[in-house]
């Protein structure tokens, strides 16, 4: 069977900080995303400025400008294919539905034997 995966374990300090924000402050998920967004923007700004770490040739700058578009596009495509895959592989529980139908019949008969009165409205649906 399956167990829900627990939160991935980072090192102690990081964990402490995360715990702090999950317990005392309530902004955690939103905050995490803002933090991530901030880091991304910073890295992008560095690339755009072309001053630190890497020198990007002039003719490649267009692509650097388009990094957010590329990122969003890739992310969107990944999400779409995951959803498509999962919809395709979503189990159709035919057998379970069949079993339930049988059991509804069986249950009704047994209950009637034990003195349960189904009213007419239900009786009409009895062979559903």
């Amino acid at each position, binding site marked *: 069977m399956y167990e829900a995966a627990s939160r991935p374990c980072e090192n102690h300090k990081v964990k402490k900080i995360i715990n702090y924000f999950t317990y005392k402050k309530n902004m955690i998920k939103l905050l995490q995303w803002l933090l991530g967004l901030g880091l991304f923007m910073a890295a992008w700004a560095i690339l755009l400025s072309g001053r630190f770490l890497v020198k990007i040739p002039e003719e490649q700058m267009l692509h650097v400008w388009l990094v957010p578009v590329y990122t969003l596009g890739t992310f969107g495509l990944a999400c779409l294919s995951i959803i498509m895959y999962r919809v395709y592989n979503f189990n159709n529980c035919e057998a379970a*539905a069949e079993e339930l139908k049988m059991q509804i019949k069986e249950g009704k008969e047994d*209950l009637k034997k034990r003195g349960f009165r189904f009213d007419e409205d239900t009786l009409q649906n009895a062979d559903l």
Partner: protein
Amino acid sequence: MEDSKSDKFSILLPTYNEKENLPIIVWLISKYMDECGYDFEIIIIDDGSPDGTLEVAQQLEKIYGKDKIVLRPREKKLGLGTAYVHGINHASGNFVIIMDADLSHHPKFIPEFIRKQQEKDFDIVSGTRYLGSGGVYGWDLKRKVISRGANLLTQILLRPGVSDLTGSFRLYKKDVLRKLVDSCISKGYVFQMEMIVRARQHGYSIGEVPISFVDRVYGESKLGGNEIVHFASGLLYLFATT
């Protein structure tokens, strides 16, 4: 397990217009629980259903006895969240199982939940349509796409560590459930999402069991634009507060 002999399972069935489904679900629960020899009670919380669900429940009480069928009706439709609170307050078991009475949650999974719980003494066991042998019956392509899409979005935004957040077929330790219910403020099935997200927040352990979900045969089903707006706002609320 020796001490599991003294365990008692209180099964909460909130009902609103379920007169066709109620006798069957009670019959099934009693069948599977008796087969496995578990001690149980079924607490039926009917919110003044106009179709006469309460009268059906009273008949069942006569057949199965007052110790097995506990009727805790309320005057009018007050919603699912408060129905659970109402039910817990009358539960005499040390475990509580919450399920829908519309036959989409099959009682055959209850013994599996119980075995899963005992495996690692989980605080919560949650049914899941999205793992392993789990699945659905009676959903068209559109409904599947919405369900899978909503689930993926939720997984990305909340990373809850549980695969099925909107399902409501779960087993809880009673004191855990009471604490969770107290700390949740959402309504409808966003309430189910909040329960599991807060459970993670509190550090409760959660096990999962694949279930097959057969969409209701009797009665009305609803999945409109309203539901989707309700879901989206609930997701945003959890995203900004947990």
